[in-house]
C-alpha cells in the first residue's frame, strides 16, 4: 500500500500550493499517472479519500489522467508504444527496450476557490 504514502505526498503538494495561493478550498486535483508507473489508480483514489479529510482539499475531486507507455527500441532505433513492462517491442518483438514515457507520477494542477 505505497499508494497511501503517495497520496500523502499529493496532499502535501496540493495543500502547500493552495495555501500559497490563498485558497479557501480545493475543488479538484489533477494527477498524471503513467500506465507503466507502479501505481494502482483505484488504490490511490481510496488513499486520497482518506488523506484529504480535514484539510483544504477535504471536498476535492480527484481526476487521474493516465498517460501511455512508450519505450526506445534499440533494435528498431525508434520510440515504440509499450502497454506493459515486460512486453516486447510491438514491431520487432525484441525486449531491448528502454522505457521513455509512461512511468511518471505528477500533480498537474489544482482547481481552488
Amino acid at each position, binding site marked *: 500500500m505505497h499508494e497511501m504514502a503517495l497520496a500523502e505526498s499529493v496532499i502535501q503538494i496540493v495543500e502547500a500550493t493552495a495555501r500559497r495561493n490563498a485558497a479557501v478550498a480545493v475543488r479538484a486535483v489533477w494527477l498524471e499517472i503513467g500506465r507503466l508507473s507502479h501505481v494502482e489508480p483505484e488504490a490511490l483514489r481510496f488513499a486520497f479519500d482518506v488523506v484529504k479529510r480535514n484539510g483544504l482539499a477535504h471536498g476535492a475531486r480527484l481526476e487521474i489522467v493516465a498517460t501511455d507507455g512508450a519505450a526506445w527500441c534499440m533494435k528498431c532505433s525508434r520510440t515504440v508504444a509499450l502497454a506493459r513492462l515486460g512486453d516486447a517491442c510491438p514491431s520487432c518483438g525484441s525486449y531491448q527496450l528502454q522505457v521513455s514515457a509512461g512511468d511518471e507520477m505528477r500533480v*498537474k494542477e489544482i482547481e481552488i476557490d
Partner: protein
Amino acid sequence: MCTTCGCGKGEARIEGAHEDAHADGTVHGHPHDHAAPHAHGHGSGHHDHQHGHVHEHRHAEGVVHSHPHDHSDAHGHGHGHGHHDHGHDDLHFGRGPAGAHAPGLSQARIVQIEQDILGKNDALAADNRRRFAERGIFAVNLVSSPGSGKTTLLVRTIEGLKGRYEVVVIEGDQETSHDADRIRATGSKALQVNTGKGCHLDADMVGKAVERLAPPAGSVLMIENVGNLVCPAGFDLGEAHKVVVLSVTEGEDKPLKYPDMFRRSSLMLLNKVDLLPHVEFDVAKCVESARRVNPAIRVIEVSATKGQGMADWLAWVEQGVAAASAARTESVHALRARLAELEEQVAALKSRLCG
C-alpha cells in the same frame, strides 16, 4: 495510519543509540496510549486520531530509549501526560495533513503545479547520495520478497569483507529488531528502522538512520529494505544500486510479476542455488524474465549458506567501493584545486588593499 482522517502513516521508528545502550539492555520501546490527539487545541472528539511518533529520551547516564506513542482520540481528553515535557528530539514519520478550514468565498482558479509526487523523497534521496559521495560510501539498497535470504546473505557478506571494508547496515522491517540483532552479532554496526505500518523505507528514514550510524569514509552501507517486491521500487534512498535478491524457492516468473523492482535493480542475486536439485526452477527462464523487463540487469547465482557464487558477489561489492572511493578522491582533488584558486584570489585582493 488513521483511516478516518489520514493523519500519521504508521509508527515508523528508528532504534535508539544502541551501541552504548546494549551493554546494559537499556534500549527499550514503550508503547503508550494517549487519550488525546497530538495537536491539541482543535475540538475534541470530532474524529479519531492515531499519531505514530517516537520520543527519544537521553538520560544523564547517556542511555537513549525511544517511546512509540499511540494516540487515540476515542478515549477523550484529559490524559495529563506531558509527553512534550520530555523535550527531546522526536522522530516523526508521516504527519497527517494540516486541518485548516478557512471560511470565505472567491472565484475558482486553476493553479498549474506540474510537480513529481515523489519529488520530496527524491530531493531527500539526492541529499543522501551527496553525503555518501562526499565520504566515499558505497550504498546498496537490498530488496526482495520476505524470506529470500537477505539477512543471511548480509551476514555472510560482512564475514567475507571482514578486515578489508567496514560494512554498516540499516535494517528495515515493520516490527522487531531481530535482523539488526543478527547483524550486530557479526560485530558490524547496524540500526533497525521499524516502519510500523509502512511497507517500504524512504529517503527520510535512511537519512536519519545514517546520521545516527555515521558510517566511516570508504565503508559499505547495506540497506536491507522491507521484504516486499512492490512498494520499495519507487522510493529512491540515495543508494548507488538497488540489488534484488530472488531465491530459487520462489517462482521464476517473479521478474514479470513484479517488473518495477527488477527494472530498477542493477543486479539480481539468485539465491539458494544449492537447493536447485530439489526444486522446480528454471534458471535460464528466470534470467530471461528479468532481462525482458531490464535488458541491462546483471545476474549472479549465489548460495549464501553454502558459499557458492559469493566470491563473484563480493567482487561486485568491491568494484562499487572502489568506484565510490575514486569519485570521492576526484571531488577532493577538485575541492583542493578550487580552494587554492580562491586563496590566490584572496591573496591578490589583500595585496591590493594593503597596497
